[in-house]
């Protein structure tokens, strides 16, 4: 079985968020991590590899420094890493991103594509399903469990107050929730191997069946009007009351605001 996992390097929420003048994120200036949903997707792929045997290829689109996240994935057990990077791809929204990644994946053999549900920076949950549309394959989103049975994948999909069990013939795409599993750690030897391994680097010319008008900032229908860091909360209200009165006061406020 061949599994492609799409991963993204995202800002570490422990560090500060920084923006470019055009409102897009200044990724080079921020501390980064592997997007948590993507990491769960990678873990799911590695578990399928452990159980059934599979070749796991990780793909990311980003700045050259995004190779770090590929090496991290390889240190966890992924077999190959592909970095899609090119100046003309910068500033992409979900449409341009999914077009780019689909263009890269068309060069690969795959039975299953796993993406995270959504990235903690953009929070759109659009890229995974859009990739499947571009490639003309089925998608099952919000996976909280993934099994393989012959040519089929059986997915438990989280759905508000219930769950669905869906079966799809491969090739197909599944989007993973971070609740899917607890990702494994890297191993020290895995890290050394990952840094000895070659990362495949693809640019615009390596993308298959894509149109320039669908790429990068220019190919992005989404225009950001304004972006800013979180607005600081006000000082709030301070009251000095005895414990019993304080409890009543807080309960009153919560009722007043319809919190309870």
């Amino acid at each position: 079985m061949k599994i492609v996992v799409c991963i993204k390097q995202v800002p570490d929420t422990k560090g500060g968020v920084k923006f470019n003048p055009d409102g897009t994120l200044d990724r080079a200036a921020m501390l980064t991590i592997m997007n948590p949903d993507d990491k769960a997707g990678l873990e799911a792929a590695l578990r399928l590899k452990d159980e059934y045997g599979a070749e796991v290829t990780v793909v990311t689109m980003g700045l050259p420094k995004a190779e770090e996240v590929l090496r991290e994935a390889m240190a966890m057990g992924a077999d190959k890493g592909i970095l899609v990077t090119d100046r003309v791809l910068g500033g992409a929204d979900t449409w341009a991103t999914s077009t780019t990644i689909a263009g890269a994946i068309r060069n690969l053999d795959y039975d299953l594509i796993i993406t995270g549900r959504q990235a903690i920076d953009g929070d759109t949950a659009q890229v995974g399903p859009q990739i499947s549309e571009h490639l003309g394959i089925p998608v099952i989103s919000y996976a909280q469990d993934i099994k393989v049975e012959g040519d089929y994948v059986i997915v438990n999909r989280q759905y508000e107050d219930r769950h669905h069990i869906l079966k799809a013939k491969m090739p197909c795409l599944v989007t993973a929730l971070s609740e899917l599993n607890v990702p494994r750690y890297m191993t020290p030897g895995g890290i050394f191997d990952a840094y000895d391994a070659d990362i495949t680097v693809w640019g615009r010319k390596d993308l298959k069946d894509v149109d320039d008008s669908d790429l990068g900032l220019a190919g992005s229908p989404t225009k950001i009007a304004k972006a800013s860091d979180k607005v600081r909360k006000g000082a709030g209200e301070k009251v000095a009351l005895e414990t019993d009165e304080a409890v009543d006061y807080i309960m009153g406020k919560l009722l007043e605001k319809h919190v309870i």
Partner: protein
Amino acid sequence: MDFTLSKKHEMARSLFKEFAETEVKPYAQETDETEQFPAETVAKMQKYGFMGIPIEKEFGGQGCDPLTYVMCVEELSKVCATTGVIVSAHTSLCADPIQTYGTPAQKEKYLVPLAKGEKLGAFGLTEPGAGTDAQGVQTKAVLDGDEWVLNGSKCFITNGKVADIYIIIAYTDIVEDKRGRKQKKFSAFIVEKGTPGFSFGTKEKKMGIRGSSTYELIFEDCRIPKDNLLGARGKGFPIAMHTLDGGRIGIAAQALGIAEGALERTVEYTKERKQFGRSISAQQNTQFLLADMATKIEAAKMLVYKAAMKKAQYQADHKTSYSVEAAMAKLYAAEVAMEVTTKAVQLHGGYGYIREYDVERMMRDAKITEIYEGTSEVQRMVISGNLLK
């Protein structure tokens, strides 16, 4: 000369740090309080290859360099010195000498499971009458047909009862030197747990590193195969000394980690603790103490990392010695650990003396780093011996 870590070392550090924070730190206080060996943590470390970091891949290890191993012990010790020494004793004192001196068959049989973490290792040199003075060793091994017969006892053995494979130093011959004085000649042996005649004595109740299993080992007509001689007959002393050179880098890393952990806690605490209407970190006394602690830790780190890199040079070319670097690293890092943790407790005031606060444990843990695997005095002997030779 470049003092920045390579990207792969940075990634390894982030791995060890995340593992230590998530899997080790939550149990550190309980491990100390209950004096229970943290078997579950060791099982997790085994799963991720932490028990064979500097061992070659060919023998089931991770194939990393000594610096990576040192950073692992350092990060573990930042949150739990017990966990740090378990890895250090296992790797430096048991797996490493088998990698260096073992025959292909010994490596296959013993090094592979050690490097994979399936088996835990320990090392026995110290005896009630012999620590620094090796000639005091009373444990004796006599060749009887195809077997060595061991008699004697070892004390203060780290990973004592929980280990599966032990490197034991015993004397095998007595020779006369030029002046007619009798000298014991030592040899090193690999002994498996469960060998008839090999049993455990009392468990030591310690001041610090209380979760580490420290036991007396007893050998009563313990018969082991002839092939379990490690290295050449009569070469046990240089093997033990060389093994301890490596072990000292591990302990230096443990000491460094303890000091770093204590500084981290103290920086947090002094920012939070308010006296006279402001946080105590606003007091110049606090600031100067913290500055000194941080500076000494940085100096210790340079010595520890340098020793690790010198050991890597040794692995590439056995003519290189890292004995002095290891001694300096351990001497300095251990003394810094003791000084930093003592100041950390002082800056915590009364709370620093209470078990609920990590620095109380760290100060107790730090003391052993000045004692085991060669006291600070022994390190000074090694360093000055090299200067005055």
